[in-house]
């Protein structure tokens, strides 16, 4: 066991003994994403790729490693992890990426982070090092606890390393654009799910739909023909090719959430909501003409003054207040139905009965430490 991991074990034992919460932190790029309580346990000293065999399609990496470093290593072998997590340029760490569970434009087409997790090492609340899952593609021994860590926001324990399934990079990539309203974009994008077309990203921003094709060269050229046919059917227009440099800049800014849209807060009262809906839900529940939608409309980013959690829940989805209003108002995060919540809480109790790890992290999305809403998960 490495010195860092033993040192963390000590800290967990101390926290356990004194009942003090620990706040697990990578680069802190998602500090805004939930409430934070406790002494910071910084993961950034624990870095490096433990093993990487390109022909096995598996990489094992320590949790404090910057995601960008992992991407560089994969790049050298023309491989990738295609789900596009945010804040890579700001230093997001592997542990933070996996535990935050956030993904970008490719998610609906290539799968979410948990589709790539094969195994993980976890320091639990007792300071024991657990090896969960494994490093092979197919493994059904015991319950798959490693995938449960994706999006758990560090509430189940301290992930020290993770094994991920990687993919070859696509041989060819092409980005296309079409002016259209949101509804037409949604109708068009729905076909990507059920037709054999090599789409790996879609985003509709203020009246323009951007689509990315990627795969074998033949698949990309076939995709262009299909897209043009559908564009003609849907809006009587056709797609324009986007120059490569511009395309890279656009998808990069979308991934990093550095597009102006993400910071264009209309007023101090506005919050940025991350809302997710089933693809089958038609139309836009709010703000029909402006806004940013990804995943063919399944993921929507909305600046709003009102609380959006209920309308999206009613439509079969969920909405989380992602950036709170500057005025200091606080919204609760999206909640599961009560039976599911009870099982989630029971699981947290089983794993971490004293709530040592990331206490309150799931409860509210708050700004500058103004956590006011009480815990929902914890009995």
């Amino acid at each position, binding site marked *: 066991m490495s010195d860092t991991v033993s040192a963390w074990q000590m800290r967990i034992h101390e926290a356990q003994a004194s009942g003090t919460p620990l706040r697990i932190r990578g680069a802190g790029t998602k500090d805004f994403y939930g409430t934070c309580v406790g002494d910071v346990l910084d993961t950034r000293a624990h870095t490096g790729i433990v093993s990487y065999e390109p022909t096995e399609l598996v990489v094992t990496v320590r949790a404090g490693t910057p995601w960008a470093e992992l991407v560089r290593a994969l790049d050298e072998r023309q491989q990738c992890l295609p789900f596009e997590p945010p804040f890579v340029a700001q230093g997001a760490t592997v542990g933070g990426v996996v535990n935050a569970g956030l993904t970008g434009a490719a998610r609906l087409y290539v799968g979410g982070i948990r589709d790539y997790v094969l195994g993980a090492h976890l320091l639990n609340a007792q300071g024991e090092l657990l090896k969960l899952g494994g490093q092979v593609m197919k493994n059904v021994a015991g319950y798959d606890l490693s995938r449960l860590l994706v*999006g758990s926001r560090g509430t189940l324990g301290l992930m020290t390393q993770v094994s991920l399934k990687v993919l*070859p990079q696509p041989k060819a990539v092409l980005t296309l654009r079409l002016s259209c309203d949101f509804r037409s974009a949604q109708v068009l994008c729905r076909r990507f799910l059920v037709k054999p077309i090599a789409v790996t990203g879609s985003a509709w921003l203020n009246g323009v739909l951007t689509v990315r094709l990627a795969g074998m060269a033949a698949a990309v050229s076939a995709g262009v023909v299909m897209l043009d046919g559908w564009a003609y059917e849907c809006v009587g227009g056709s797609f324009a090719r986007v120059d490569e440099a511009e395309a890279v800049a656009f998808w990069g800014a979308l991934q990093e959430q550095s597009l102006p849209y993400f910071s264009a807060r209309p007023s101090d009262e506005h919050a940025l909501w991350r809302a997710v809906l089933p693809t089958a839900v038609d139309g836009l529940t709010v703000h029909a003409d402006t806004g940013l939608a990804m995943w063919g409309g399944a993921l929507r980013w909305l600046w709003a003054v009102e609380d959006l959690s209920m309308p999206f829940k009613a439509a079969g989805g969920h909405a989380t207040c992602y950036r709170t209003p500057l005025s200091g108002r606080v919204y609760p995060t999206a909640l599961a139905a009560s039976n*599911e919540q009870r*099982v989630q809480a029971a699981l947290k109790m089983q794993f971490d009965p004293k709530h040592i790890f990331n206490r309150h992290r799931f409860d509210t999305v708050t700004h500058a430490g103004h956590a006011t809403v009480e815990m929902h998960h914890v009995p």
Partner: protein
Amino acid sequence: MNTDVTSSALSSLLRALAPHMPSANIISQNDRMRPFEADALTMFKQLPLCVVLPENETQLKALLCACSALNIGVVTRGAGTGLSGGATPSAGAVLLVMSKFNCIIEVDGDNGVACVQAGVRNAAISEAAAVHGLYYAPDPSSQIACSIGGNVAENSGGVHCLKYGLTVHNVLKVRVMLMSGEVIELGGLAPDAVGLDLLPVFIGSEGMLGVVTTVWVKLVPKPRHAEVILASFPTVQSAADAVANVIAAGLIPAGLEMMDAASTAAVEAYLHAGYDLEAAALLLCESDGEPDVVAQEIAAMSQILREAGATRLQVSQNEAERLKFWAGRKSAFPAAARLAPDYYCMDGTIPRKSLGRILTAIAAMEQEFGLQCLNVFHAGDGNMHPMILFNGADPDEVERAEHFGAKILEASIALGGTITGEHGVGLEKIGHMCMQFTDEERGAMWAVKAAFDPPGLLNADKAIPTLHRCAEFGRMHVHHGEMPFPDLPRF
């Protein structure tokens, strides 16, 4: 179990169920329960307390609530095709059979989602989706028989899962009834769960956490075209290298299977697929999708296989030939069955780079145990199914076969692999779980069990061994199968 206790438990249960369920949905006579006493791992047989076949959630709830109140265990069964004894009844427990939950509720062709009840057969989903040009990708070989509920419980996969993923990658949402009778829904049609994502931990939990009643699966476009390359290699190692080279070139085949010379010989004798009997190893490497893309991939793959030393290379020229090439691989099991009275099919996964090493090790074990072993591999993902041939009528051969199997699993773990790639732990490998996981790791699994099923009534003696049980296995293990107190009953 004491028969008086059993019969009083049974009569209490029947009394509790009477107002909720027609008596035709309950079977309690021994002779009528025989068909249910084992799943496809027939080594283990046990009659349950009774067999109950609810038709809907109301009846299911009545059953689970009654069992909870009476502290009676429940084992859920789908189609009973499981290969690890997961659906083997437990003495004194109810066998809950989900086959009446067989309705396809909705196929949404516009969004690529099907909603089906748990007892629906895997292949029936694709049949229903075919009118939309869609299908459900995970394709266990048992797909015409096995239920989607069983697939969820086992996280099943098939030949195509290298490219299309396992059950866990293709199920969007499940509706589950807990032992308490409460219903929970895990996952969702809106991507990304709220709070902790319990769906992936539920998938593959072998019926220990809750009863699946309804499943929402992802449907994907049916590939318009497929071609397969049949390639011969002079050594197993050169075939293994060829697999690595295909992956290194950035290609993900739709299927990538390997057979050793012994399997090839068995298959040729059985159905004359035209396989090359000179080859030490055969590879089947498939591409599917749009015709242009397939052509491009097949050309690239052929070149790589040739450069890796393939001595013979055939590309299927039409659908009939493609199916003929596959027929040999798909009949490996019945072909093995002709060579010996019995065979023991193992299931482990190893890192692909160790393929040559494990095959060499298995060859040495054949000498050591004096038994033949055929090897077929899901080579793309390192999942192997060694088939150990033996004669079940000879107790000594049975014992040698079991040791042989255990030793393969030990070797898999030592190479960084796992004791089960797709068949599950069930009853069969519960002892081997002690080899792969520490007490603390199994403790974390029991913690999950406790969160879902606090009284521990669902499939309680399967999959995740207790500390006590591992201690016992450890003792057995040290003695190399010379069981202490062989005359005492074991469970």
